[in-house]
């Protein structure tokens, strides 16, 4: 039974495993501070609901279709990243690891494209950032999540390069130093995985509180 399912227990040594645990716990501490940030942006949005200052409200600005596509893209991206961690854990080859990381990246970019299209549409309908308190709170909340996804995508690209350069499989690597590098790449991919799945959890809150609550009659 491994503590962190992504970590390769079958082949990794005890030392690598022991080193990974505080790293992952530390990353959880960061994620929880991020959770507090998002929670307060949600609270701000909730207090600003209905403060439209005569401007367009959610029913004029939001669209159900794109929100559904964004939700699906992010969820599929989460699954693709899960597949990447599985492929890494069971060492099914570098090609498959890169394939699933690439799939997660692509779906993240699909999400971002639809979100940017949403924002542009809202601006065109007169729903800019400064139009009303509700819209400022909306862009603060959804924009912060979008920025997180953007940096997540960038981070996936960086990890794909690291996998290409250093590899993420212990059995490929003969020397102690090469094994150490592979271990480090593995724990980095695990931490990015926590980040990526966490962003999907924040999105559950956004599509529920912002989009669906705003669009329901």
């Amino acid at each position: 039974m491994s503590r962190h399912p992504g970590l390769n227990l079958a082949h990794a040594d005890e030392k690598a495993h022991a080193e990974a645990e505080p790293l992952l716990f530390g990353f959880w501490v960061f994620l929880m501070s991020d959770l507090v940030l998002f929670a307060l942006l949600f609270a701000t949005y909730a207090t600003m609901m209905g403060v439209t200052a005569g401007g367009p409200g959610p029913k004029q600005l939001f669209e159900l279709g794109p929100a559904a596509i964004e939700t699906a893209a992010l969820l599929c991206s989460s699954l693709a990243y899960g597949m990447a961690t599985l492929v890494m854990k069971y060492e099914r080859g570098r090609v498959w690891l890169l394939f699933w990381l690439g799939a997660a990246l692509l779906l993240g970019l699909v999400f971002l494209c639809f979100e940017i299209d949403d924002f542009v549409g809202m601006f065109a309908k007169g729903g800019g950032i400064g139009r009303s308190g509700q819209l400022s709170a909306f862009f603060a909340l959804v924009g912060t999540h979008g920025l997180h996804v953007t940096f997540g995508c960038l981070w996936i690209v960086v990890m794909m390069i690291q996998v290409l350069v250093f590899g993420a499989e212990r059995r490929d690597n003969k020397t102690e130093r090469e094994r150490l590098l592979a271990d480090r790449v593995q724990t980095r991919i695990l931490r990015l995985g926590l980040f990526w799945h966490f962003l999907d959890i924040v999105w559950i809150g956004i599509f529920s509180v912002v989009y669906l609550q705003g669009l329901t009659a």
Partner: protein
Amino acid sequence: MNEKHDFASDLRTYLVGFALAALLSAVPFAAVALHRPRAQVLWLLIGCGLVQLLVHFRCFLHIDLSEQKRDDLQLILFSVMIVVLMVGGTLWIMGNAHRHMM
């Protein structure tokens, strides 16, 4: 350790989580698309949202009640308590102010 069996069971965790999450997202979206009454939709949002939260933590982030995950779980629960206090307090105070100003 049976590696093939472990791979299959890990894979199943992800796929079950994905199926549940997709279902729990689709239901409230469908309710809004079908113009269900507002009160009904809001309860559905709260219910499905909270269950989906648990599904994601269990199946994707691998947080469970086992002893190995106890540190992570306690950190998460403490953070949730902080969030509940801050968000709940904000909504309470601002809601109160709003009622008195109207």
